[in-house]
């Protein structure tokens, strides 16, 4: 085993810095792209459904029915449209002029006062799954409020469940989404930054120069990861500042814990990018692999959009093989829950293993000779 020589790794890093500062594309990709991405995704991705078009048909026209409608209207979640009849209301939903319909039958108030239990009907457009869940949630809450406002009718419930949301009291989806976007951005950025570097050296012939010297694969890998890791940390700092200042996402955890997670995740994906580059030796192919491995699993299987717990059992286990799943947990929990290094021990251990494994595999697959 030949000794690792820091002088050589530092020389590779210095050379990469020269490449980076003279290549506007790399600098822009590393520093400007993440800022744009967090701004665009931060605004565009909104899981809270507000101002749902609700068409109402009030055949009762009593104080109670109007109070019920007022409660819906003043909630902020619904925009009320009035329909002449239940059929008109259903037609509005069918024609997609409204997402849901509230149909209040005649005798609504009478049934209520008679203690027979008044009934009204909510029809929700089930073809758009993304709105059904939130709408049903709102309806449940509004029903409780409306019961109190309409009169002193004792709820058949003998107890009341009061819900309070911890860590994100207003259920602001941006608080949840933006730490997740940070993970996605870091994955795409870091894998792309390094995926081209080794392939470029093979294509322009400079790999022959490198390999003709006594430099070792690990020195090349470390030398290449270091400057791009630093660049990635600068980029994530920008993303963090935007998350806190522009979107007002709270950060209640320890910055050092979050930073350590960022560093481990960055190095893992930078090494994965290098592995792609080492194996493919062609920039175009490396780029395609990087996009595929960097974007798809991170967006779809890391828990960013779809909760891992809701996935089929196979995928719940499969996602354990994705570093992004573990960093997603670290990012969200440090931002919103203030989890400590100890709380996130499992996630950090997983990232540490992936990081070491990726560097090991990239180094092993690095060819020391010019065999085609």
């Amino acid at each position, binding site marked *: 085993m*030949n000794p690792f*020589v820091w*002088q*050589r790794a*530092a*020389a*590779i890093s*210095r*050379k990469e810095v*020269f*490449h980076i500062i*003279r*290549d506007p594309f790399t600098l822009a990709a590393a520093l400007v792209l993440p800022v744009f991405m967090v701004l665009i995704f931060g605004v565009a991705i909104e899981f809270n459904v507000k101002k749902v078009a609700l068409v109402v048909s009030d055949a009762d026209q009593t104080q109670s029915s109007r109070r019920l409608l007022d409660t819906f209207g003043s909630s902020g979640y619904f925009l009320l449209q009035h329909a002449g009849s239940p059929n008109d209301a259903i037609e509005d939903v069918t024609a997609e002029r409204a997402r849901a319909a509230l149909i209040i039958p005649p005798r609504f108030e009478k049934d209520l006062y008679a203690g027979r239990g008044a009934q009204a009907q909510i029809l929700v457009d089930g073809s758009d799954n993304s709105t059904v869940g939130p709408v049903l949630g709102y309806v449940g809450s509004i029903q409780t409020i409306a019961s109190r406002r309409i009169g002193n009718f004792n709820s058949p419930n003998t107890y009341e469940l009061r819900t309070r949301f911890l860590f994100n009291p207003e259920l602001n989806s941006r608080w949840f989404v933006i730490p997740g976007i940070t993970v996605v951005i870091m994955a795409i950025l870091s894998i792309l930054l390094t995926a081209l570097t080794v392939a470029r050296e093979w294509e*322009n*012939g*400079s790999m*022959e*120069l*490198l*390999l*003709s*010297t*006594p*430099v*070792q694969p690990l020195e090349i890998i470390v030398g290449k990861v270091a400057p791009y890791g630093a660049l990635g940390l600068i980029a994530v700092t920008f993303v963090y500042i935007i998350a806190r200042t522009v979107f007002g996402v709270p950060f209640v955890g320890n910055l050092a814990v979050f930073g350590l997670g960022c560093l481990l995740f960055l190095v893992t994906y930078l090494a994965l990018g290098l592995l792609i580059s080492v194996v493919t030796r062609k920039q175009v192919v490396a780029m395609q692999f990087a996009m595929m491995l960097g974007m798809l699993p991170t967006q779809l299987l890391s828990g960013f959009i779809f909760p891992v717990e809701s996935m089929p059992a196979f995928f719940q286990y499969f996602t354990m093989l994705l570093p992004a799943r573990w960093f997603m947990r670290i990012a969200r929990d440090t931002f919103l829950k203030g989890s400590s290094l100890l709380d996130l021990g499992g996630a950090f251990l997983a990232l540490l293993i992936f990081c070491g494994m990726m560097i090991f595999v990239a180094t092993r697959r690095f060819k*020391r*000779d*010019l*065999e*085609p």
Partner: protein
Amino acid sequence: MNEITVDVRNLSVRFGDFTAVDRVSFSVRRGETFGFLGANGAGKTTTIRVLCGLLHPTEGQVRVVGVGFEDGERAIKSKVGYMSQKFTLYNDLTVDENLSFIASLRKLDPAVYAQRRTELFDFISFGRPLNTPVHDLPGGTKQQVSLVAALLHDPDIIFLDEPTAGVAPASRSRFWAMIRKLAAIGKTVFVTTHYMDEAEQCDRIALMREGKIIALDTPEGLKRNAFPMPMLEFDPKEPLSFAEVSAMAQHDVFSFFEPYGLRFHASIKSEEAWERARPQFEDTFIIKRITPSLEDVFIHKVEGQAV
């Protein structure tokens, strides 16, 4: 001067089913300028890459400056200088950034690097600022800087793989002047080339064809062995038709007949036969005896186009 710097015994390199180098044996003496001549795909570059530790031999033994693959390819890499046929420096880095990068990879002390850089820039008469980006250098100067990069660690032997390919004639000439200077200070130079005039300047030349060395000698020795009988040059007084040229090439008095520009070079089988046949050519050609060129040898031996 008789110390062996490169010793190759039954070297074979195979890539799958393809044999790039086939049981090649030769040795190179210290201070020698040794040339490899052959067509594209003959195995020259593959052999050089093995000798520089860039490729592992499939079979055979290789020792370069006293070390072999059994000592690890890094041992070989640290002893040799290598300049690839491809331009391998970084175009977006300056001359100094490129060279200091190589110096660091070879663990040269900064003071030693600075001294070597000055010496080598004097050697190649490099007068441009050190912070000149490499992409701003002319092709010939880029090659010279590549040579400096290969010489920074002061290797005993330098491998140059087609160092002047695509370089202007004046630059080629200057580059070969440097190679002669290197040889003069005792460096072993191992060079592959496509240019016959360059090959003529080597102390010895190995001719390669299909992975095998088919001849190895001094330029004069190669010519003597390839053409033991006199070589004649035929300068046609009038342009010839294809049929006339073809008929001449088939004439049984010649062992070799090839066009050489507007003229023809031919080697005769025997003096007696030539004297008998000579009168029939004298009306059509101005005939003179010449020394065979290395190109004649190359065509005869490597391309196998002997009549």
